[in-house]
Each structure stands twice: as structure tokens, then as C-alpha cells.
């Protein structure tokens, strides 16, 4: 089985890895690159637990061919915090009980962070649309929506990074 070389910039760091042909990005991020923040929930693009960004666009890592991100920028939830300083969304999620089991959280954060980067003051409907690809089985979504809106209000004062 010959491997394919993939170079990428992961959360700002230059990385290089050899992947199996047909291996998906989720698998490569977790097993080859050691980034355990995106999760496996369905393997079919329904749950959103594997949400990452590729060149700044939200994508589902489980449906992305790893070799297709050669030369790309990939960002995951592991890159949200700045060292020990949390992203405003992470603070907001903690404040607003926006996680219970925590399994959907990293995917939610990626969808939310991308939204706030593009729309710093989203409406509630826009927040709902932004997380419409992320399933949560625990919270009923309202605390998550509240947290994102709160973060949006906070980020207008400049404490967010993305």
C-alpha cells in the first residue's frame, strides 16, 4: 500500500504526513496528526461532530479525502484558544451551559467561529443556520445559540481572535 504525502498548515503550524489512499481527513487529523478535537459521530456528513475549516471554509473532515487538502490551511477547535487564553466562544459556552456531554462541542465551536468571523453580529436565525449542520443530543440547542449570540456581543468589544 503506497502512501501519499500531504503537506498542510494545521492551526498555523506547518505539518507533513503520509496518508493511505482513500483515508479521510478526520482519521488523518486524529491518528496521524494527533489532533483529537474533531470527533467521529456518523461518517456520513449528518452530525457535524467532525467540522473543521479548510482554507477558512467549514468542511466535514469525515467526508474529506485527506490527500485533497495537500497545500491547504486546516483549522480545528484545537486552534481556537491562544495558549491558555480561551476564545470568546469557549468562554461563552462555559458561561451559558452550552455543553453537556461535550461530544458535539468542538464541531459547534468551529461552525460558530466561522460564522462570527464572517458575520460579527449575526441574527438569531443566522446562528441557527450556521449550526444547522451540527447535531446536539443533549442541550436542545438553545444554550448553544445563546452562547454564540453572547459571544458575538462580546466580540464586538474586540476580545475574540478569529
Amino acid at each position, binding site marked *: *500500500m503506497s502512501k*501519499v504525502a500531504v503537506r498542510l498548515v494545521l492551526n498555523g503550524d506547518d505539518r507533513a504526513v503520509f496518508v*493511505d*489512499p*482513500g*483515508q*479521510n481527513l478526520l482519521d488523518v487529523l486524529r491518528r496521524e496528526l494527533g489532533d483529537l478535537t474533531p470527533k467521529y459521530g456518523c*461518517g*456520513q*456528513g449528518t452530525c*457535524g461532530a467532525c*467540522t473543521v475549516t479548510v482554507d477558512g*471554509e*467549514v*468542511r*466535514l473532515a*469525515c*467526508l*474529506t*479525502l485527506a*490527500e*485533497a487538502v495537500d497545500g491547504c490551511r486546516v483549522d480545528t477547535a484545537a486552534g481556537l484558544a491562544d495558549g491558555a487564553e480561551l476564545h470568546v466562544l469557549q468562554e461563552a459556552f462555559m458561561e451559558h451551559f452550552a455543553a453537556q456531554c461535550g461530544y458535539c462541542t468542538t464541531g459547534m465551536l468551529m*461552525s460558530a467561529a*466561522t460564522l462570527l468571523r464572517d458575520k460579527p453580529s449575526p441574527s438569531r436565525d443566522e446562528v*441557527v*443556520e*450556521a*449550526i*444547522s*449542520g*451540527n447535531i446536539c443530543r443533549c442541550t436542545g440547542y438553545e444554550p448553544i445559540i445563546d452562547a454564540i449570540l453572547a459571544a458575538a456581543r462580546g466580540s464586538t468589544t474586540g476580545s475574540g481572535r478569529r
Partner: protein
Amino acid sequence: MTLRTECAVNAVEAARVLGGDSRSRLSAGGTLLMRAVNEGDPSFDLIVRHADPQVLSLRLQADRLHIGAAVTMSALLASPDAACLHAAARQVGGPAIRNMATVGGNLFAPSPYGDLATALLALDATYTSVDDTNPRPLESLFALRATHTVAGSPIARPPVVLELQCRRPAAEADFRFLKVSRVKPKGISVMAIAVHLPGSATGARLQQVRIAFGAMGATPLRAVSAERALEGQTLGEPSIAAATAVALDGLHPDTDAIASRWYRQTVAPVHLGRALRAGGRR
């Protein structure tokens, strides 16, 4: 069997590789193919990709849209020229799926997927492929798919689609798209309905009516009798009633994880009525 991948230099090369290996599949956005990979689909082990620029372009020429097969739903949504397709593109998956899913891939998406293909069918869209650069009606592609779905076999030499073409509706309000799903805001179709009613915006007699249903058969299908019931009529309660009475003609709904055949049959006329009364794009 071990998976292999190949990145072809262009669409012609991709078609050559695909034609030469019955265990190969083309990866467009990957939203359907990678799912099959993840589930261990044993029917293929070669994944073929290409980044031919001609499948990435999106342009308006005269009043015809030319959409490259690899144009994503997000790219469609970002283009004001493609406004008539926004209602359909907007409801495909969630934001991440829309960044990945392509127009070309949607043509091959099995029921109950294929919302965009449904809209394109109602717009009399045509397609060109590597093997055939003369635009062909989408119906011929769907007919090819339907034959193979019933036989349970993959298409031996699936066309490598290059581009889709369709004329934009003369008036925005002439074209409506309705997606019926149980989960909001994003859900898989119980059914999708695209109706093109040229003349309705001005209250004139309808010409070239097209009514396409998705998830009511193996591929998007036209409700041919409903179309005939509206053809040459003005849009109003009597003609709408005549159309919904024969809504199911030409359709072959089935049971799947989303809805039963019985449910689809029962609600299709109701939703067709809503689409016809919508008075504008939804």
C-alpha cells in the same frame, strides 16, 4: 481491497481512467462518495479526482446559465446570476455540506437526495460530458440512472459531466422550489418540488409548464399529467385543482428511512398545491 486514488490532469483523462476500471468512481465534492468509503462499500476501490478548470466555472451567457459540474452549492449561492437555483441550493445539507457538495454530484445523488437536480429538471437543464459535448437533456441521464437502480448495478461507463446549462426563468416569480422535510432548518427531503410556470407572473396563459419532484422515485421525475393540466391555462384555483388531482402521475414514490410510500403519495398533492399557490420563490 485496498483503496487507490488517482488525480487526473483533466476531465478527459479522468473519463479514460474511469472507463478503463469498473471498480472506479469519480469523486466530486465527496459528500456521497466518502460516505460510501467510510461504510466500506465493496463495489469500488479506485477513487478518481480531477480539477479541470472547465468544471469550476459559473457564468451567464445571454440568458443561459453555464454551471461547471464541480461548482459547489455555496458557489451557486454566492452568484446573483444563479438566483433561480438559490432556494434549492440553500436547503442542501448544512453550511459545511454546501461548501463541499457539487452540482454535478447532485445529478447522481440517489433518492431522497438530489434537490438541486430536481430544480434543474424543472428548468429544462441540459448537460455536456467528456464523451458528448452536445448538450443533452437531464432526463436522459436520469433514465440511465433509473435503469441501473432497478437492476441494482452500477452504471458501467457513467458520463463525466462537464457543465450544465439552463435558461433562467423570464420572471423570478415564475419559478418556485419547495423542499418538504421533517427536520428544520436542515433535513433530508420527504420530497422536493420545483415548478416552472412561465407566464404566471403576468397572469398570462402558462406555456411550457414544468413540474419536477425529487424523492418521489429513483431520480427526479416530472409530474407529466399535472403539467398537462396547467398547460395553456391561467394559474388559478381551477387549474391548480386539476393539477393536484393528477399529481402522482409519472411519479414512483418508495419507502425509505425518511418516509413511507404511503405518506409520500398522500401528501404530494397537498404540497404541489402549496407550491403552485406560493406566488413567488420560497
